[in-house]
């Protein structure tokens, strides 16, 4: 059965329910497996990372499968997808896999084919020079950044996603193609705190954020929004009903209560927050979701705001580089960024990463008290002395 070239395909607007197929769900996964995967399903004994981006899995049957992992762009064209298929047809019997972090995996069983596959992948470049299929993203390095749509396709972003990810991965390319860090570093990016990317448990998270309260489109708000829904959407009760001078129903906003979450805009298109100067990037660090050694952790805000400097975000890229380099130099083997920060103390984290600290980084939302230090245990850093000198300008050195 061929794909239809008719403008409406198999759809007949006169009889919309005729020949209709629904609720069939996805295809069963078994047919998408190469033979070696079918044969050894549930029988894998161990694996080894042979070199960055190349894994071997060994089965109890003695079978081996070699995986070559390539950095992928989650946003791509069908032309690139066809090239991925061409590679899979040429080397991998027509099978390919994608990882949760938008990497592309090509599987072969023959070690001789492995060399040809790797060579083929490295040889493919876009005309502008960037690699199409860089090999890496395994072990104690930086793997691909999971991200959201940004300006490509979203109506609520406070920054762009694809461009920031490209800029950061260009900078961290050496860590993608090597395994020289104390543990894996998972970088994630979401362009607003709706977080389709759910970046809140990443070693380093980049989050687009607004800093100006919504601007009210008084003329239409009464027509296009359910005002009670918009009012109820505010977590800090900053929005209340109001009337314009002309007597139109609208809302008013207590600006000092706004935490810029954008939930009102999700409910009501007449309350946009986006603003060139207001919007930018929050950097969070120290989260993880694996249960290995320590329990999963949330990422913590370590930089409250960096500007949206399109298209390459030098301030964001620099900050990520700074954190990773400090971590690489100081952390123990197996220690994730959050475990490292917890061991040395967050005051040392800020010192070693050379990041400023400000009141923005002290929680004052719900459950804030849980993060305040109720102990005399602390380490002296310059930031501690700045406090002591402010309290007592006569303090000696």
């Amino acid at each position, binding site marked *: 059965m061929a794909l239809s070239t008719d403008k*409406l395909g198999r759809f007949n607007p006169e009889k919309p329910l005729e020949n209709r197929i629904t609720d069939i769900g996805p*295809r069963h996964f078994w047919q998408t497996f190469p033979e070696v995967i079918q044969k050894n399903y549930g029988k894998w004994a161990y694996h080894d990372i042979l070199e960055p981006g190349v894994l071997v*899995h060994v089965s109890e049957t003695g079978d081996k499968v070699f995986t070559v992992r390539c950095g992928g762009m989650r*946003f791509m*064209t069908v032309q690139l997808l066809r090239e991925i298929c061409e590679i899979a047809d040429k080397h991998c019997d027509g099978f390919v896999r994608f990882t949760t972090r938008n990497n592309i995996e090509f599987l072969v069983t023959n070690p001789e084919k492995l060399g040809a596959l790797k060579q083929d992948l490295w040889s493919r470049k876009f005309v502008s020079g960037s690699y199409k299929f860089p090999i890496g993203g395994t*072990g104690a390095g930086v793997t691909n950044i999971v991200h959201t*749509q940004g300006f490509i396709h979203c109506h609520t972003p406070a920054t762009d996603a694809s461009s920031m990810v490209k800029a950061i991965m260009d900078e961290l390319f050496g860590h993608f193609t090597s395994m020289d860090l104390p543990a894996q570093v998972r970088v994630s990016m979401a362009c607003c705190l709706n977080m389709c990317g759910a970046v809140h448990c990443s070693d380093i998270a980049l989050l687009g954020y607004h800093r100006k309260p919504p601007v009210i489109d008084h003329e239409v708000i009464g027509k296009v929004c359910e005002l009670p829904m918009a009012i109820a959407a505010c977590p800090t009760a900053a929005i209340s009903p109001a009337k314009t001078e002309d007597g139109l129903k609208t809302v008013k906003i207590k600006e000092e209560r706004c935490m810029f979450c954008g939930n009102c805009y999700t409910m009501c298109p007449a309350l946009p927050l986006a603003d060139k100067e207001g919007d930018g990037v929050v950097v969070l660090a120290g989260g993880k979701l694996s249960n290995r*050694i320590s329990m999963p952790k949330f990422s913590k805000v370590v930089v409250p705001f960096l500007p949206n400097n399109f298209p390459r975000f030098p301030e964001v890229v620099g900050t990520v580089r700074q954190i990773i380099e400090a971590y690489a130099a100081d952390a123990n083997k197996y220690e994730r960024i959050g475990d490292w920060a917890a061991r040395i103390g967050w005051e040392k984290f800020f010192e070693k990463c050379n990041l400023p600290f400000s009141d923005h980084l002290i929680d004052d939302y719900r459950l804030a008290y849980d993060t305040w230090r109720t102990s005399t245990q602390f380490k002296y850093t310059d930031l501690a002395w700045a406090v002591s000198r402010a309290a007592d300008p006569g303090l000696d050195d």
Partner: protein
Amino acid sequence: MAFEPKRPQKKINYEEIRLYSDAELNSTTEEELKNFKIKHDIPMCEDLEKGPWPSFVADAKQGALHRRKLADGRVLIPRDVIEDLLGQLELSFVHGETHWKHGGIVGVFGYGGGVIGRYSDLQEEYPAIAHFHTVRVNQPASKFYDTDFLKGLADLWEYRGSGLLNLHGSTGDLVLLGTITDQLEPLFQEMAHVLDTDLGGSGSNLRTPSCCIGKARCEYACYDTQAMCYEMTMHYQDELHRPAFPYKFKFKFDGCPNGCVASIARSDIAFIGTWRDDIRIDQNAVQGYIAGEYAPNAGAHKGRDWGKFDIQKEVIDLCPTGCMSLEGGKLVIDNANCTRCMHCINTMPRALRPGTDTGISMLFGAKAPILEGAQMSTLVIPFIKAEPPYDNIKEVIEKVFEWWMEEGKNRERLGETVQRVGLPKFLEILEVPAAPQMVKEPRSNPYIFWKEEDVPGGFQRDINEFRKRHKR
């Protein structure tokens, strides 16, 4: 493992279904691509063509040129759709603000999810992306594909859409980005009839479930994540396509506590593989690691010289429970005190393996920060067997659905509902007793909501009786 689809599967053969000839697919030369300029001036976008990491701009431009070279009638939505998208992206960089309008309700008959309406707010400047709707396609479990399917999809999406897509979206769907309202039904039915596949979830419904690679290529998988993900996706098709929940609801299936699909952080119910017997030890392989014959951590640290592997320092001392020791050269694990964190297994995969009496820990209520702050999922069911047809687990799921559909407020995730009413109430709904495993530590305040039936004599007392004992 047997191949047991819930419905007959179509064999897809690209040569039989294809829309474009080889000549059409290979119509652009490298020289043309080098000299190609799209119709808008996009200096900032073009800056993103530099650098080693794959450039989405370079890719988009090759897609744009390819569409230009297709003959009239060989695409059903504007051929310059990618050019207008890049043009609008450039302008968004200049303005520092997105140019997509808020929302828009479009979809296919009978479904309330799977399609997200999207319109440009500069329709005159960028007419080809005036309508640019998203279609979420339910990915196969763990994202393996055969190229017949992908090539067929590529042709279909080039013909009836922009040719731009995500492999994959954050929830796991294969996301098609950009088509017009009139092509939604035709696209949906072509996918169903020819590509044998269906839409994913969006809106207040069950979102497309996703799983880790599991038994397909991982020795740690404690249950068949793919089989279970597939079964749950098929079993809850109605919940997936027809929004009837207070808000979105996510299932994610992780085969072990390493958590490669982030279920603990991202799903309303996290199904995480675990075991209840002993870690399997191959003492010879332990000696192999100690002797330096095998690279520790499956070779993950090969890029730096960390010195000789030290089992005491790198495994035994890092064990969070201190339940391991070397006795007479043999590795000994006190399994009763093991919390199955995976560190020793990850570090010495040839020597240590999860037990064989395996199942699932069920955790509930993870979500991103909107609105009350981010939540991770909370351990409620320590261990449950996960064997087809998973009736025991479906029973638990349905208790949750039924209660949350009743109790949950509009746009309130399960985790928030549970926080609002308290974990003890949620345990009542699930009909399970409380256990210390559910908390990091017991409460430090004594504000217990005692119920009348808990207290001898009940709450009703006579004030006059009280006053007989205590003068005013």
